């Protein structure tokens, strides 16, 4: 039993990794713009379709899908930010509703192009098989290992962009004090656009690596997006650590509880815990305290 739970725990890491990639994008956007993008799940879905198209029509394997999805979905994000979100600046609830409209349009658009059928994408052959981890009763798939490494790499890249580059410095300045950032000559609209594109691009990447695990369909992204909203609620904003912790707690708890009881009970328990936690910490666990 302990062995089986440990195995689930390991599997949980790959779930955490995917959730982390999705939530990173959402957290960066929410941190800078205080906007919840209801179409985030559909950006995931489009990322998966990018992988499907590359594999099905061009015969390119999944590795190609990662940069392609980032660029395609990032470009869509740029358009959405430019065409819609900046017009609703300062009205977070309206933005949320308008992006729901975007979500409906994207889903229908994909249905029109690809039809409502489920699609399948294969993981790269090189990642077939798995590695045996002592103490676990199943081999740990190379593909899951790849997901974890990719997530860590993206986490590092995000950290590096935010904390080690001039652009990241501007982003953090906008996050902390938008008017003052403008006073210093920072083009905050450009920052908003690029941040939104980057966050969307990450969702696209997540979609690509989800494609071989899940069946690809127009509605596949929604539940992941909801989980990542919960990550933001639990982890708070303003720090990557909060996002990592939120994703880790939610991803692991859902996986292990799903194994012990079942999927839905796991979700229900995690949700209950989140609601109770924010009763104590309404700003989430890791928000910078400032007045």
């Amino acid at each position: 039993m302990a062995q089986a739970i440990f195995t689930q725990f390991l599997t949980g890491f790959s779930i955490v990794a995917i959730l982390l990639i999705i939530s990173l994008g959402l957290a960066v956007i929410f941190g800078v713009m205080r906007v919840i993008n209801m179409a985030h799940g559909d950006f995931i879905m489009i990322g998966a379709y990018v992988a499907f198209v590359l594999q099905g029509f061009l015969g390119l394997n999944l590795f190609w899908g990662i940069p392609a999805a980032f660029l395609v979905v990032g470009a869509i994000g740029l358009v959405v930010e430019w065409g819609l979100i900046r017009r609703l600046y300062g009205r977070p609830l309206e933005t949320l509703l308008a992006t729901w409209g975007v979500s409906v349009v994207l889903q229908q658009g994909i249905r029109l192009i690809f039809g409502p059928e489920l699609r399948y994408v294969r993981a790269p052959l090189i990642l077939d098989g798995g590695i045996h981890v002592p103490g676990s009763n199943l081999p740990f798939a190379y593909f899951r290992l790849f997901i974890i490494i990719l997530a860590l790499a993206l986490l590092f890249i995000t950290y590096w962009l935010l904390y080690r580059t001039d652009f990241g410095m501007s982003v953090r300045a906008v996050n902390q004090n938008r008017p003052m950032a403008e006073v210093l000559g920072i083009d905050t609209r450009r920052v908003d656009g690029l941040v939104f594109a980057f966050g969307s691009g990450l969702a696209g990447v997540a979609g690509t690596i989800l494609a071989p695990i899940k069946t690809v369909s127009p509605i596949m992204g929604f539940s992941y997006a909801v989980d990542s909203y919960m990550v933001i609620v639990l982890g708070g904003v303003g720090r990557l650590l909060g996002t990592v912790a939120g994703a880790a707690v939610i991803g692991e708890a859902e996986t292990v509880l799903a194994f012990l009881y079942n999927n839905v009970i796991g979700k229900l328990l995690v949700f209950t815990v989140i609601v109770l936690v924010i009763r104590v910490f309404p700003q989430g666990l890791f928000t910078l305290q400032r007045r």
Partner: protein
Amino acid sequence: MPLLEIKGIDTFYGASHILHSLSLSIDQGEIECILGRNGVGKTTLLRSIIGLTPPRRGAILFKGQDVTRMRVNRRARLGIGYVPQGREIFPDLSVMDNLRLGRIAGNATRTVPDEIFEFFPMLKPLADRRGGLLSGGEQQQVAIARALCGKPELLLLDEPTEGIQPSVVQEIEAVLKRIHREKKVTILLVEQKLDFARRVSQEFTIMVKGRVAREANIESLTDDVVREYLTI
């Protein structure tokens, strides 16, 4: 041609009408001080110039160019530096990062030139400290240094001595005079402390209820004027 020319601006804050067809012009190389009691619109005037609270009517010309509808970041790049009331240092960024952000407005490389630390020697040991952990006086110096990093031609300062101990006030005074002399920066200053204003500036403008009430050379800021417009 004046460096900054304000032509009859009306500025609102929400529904409240703060500046009433206010006109003002600042010549190149001047140090001018805006005086007036609290709530007469001094801060709003500076915010109108930098663009944070753009006027609804009237025009603002900087270097002969109409900037009335220009976005804040473009004005900054055009050469207007702004040190707001309360300093507004980025609390979670280091002093060095705060200064490097200041370089953006100057369209310059983001390395902070040594000359900045010549002006503000006490910032050198604090370079890696988080902005939020500094004292008020240190923050004020960072704020001025940051604005200076953007190589402004016009520097707007909102109560730079507010809540700051006398020794630091003296340093700020010396720095402002040096900036003016050596870097040929024109300075527009909002100030409550009369002595400081007298020592630093050449011209003064007194505002009353969103309008210019008096404008003259600092020498003519007599006690009668002070009693009429400024004393409690």
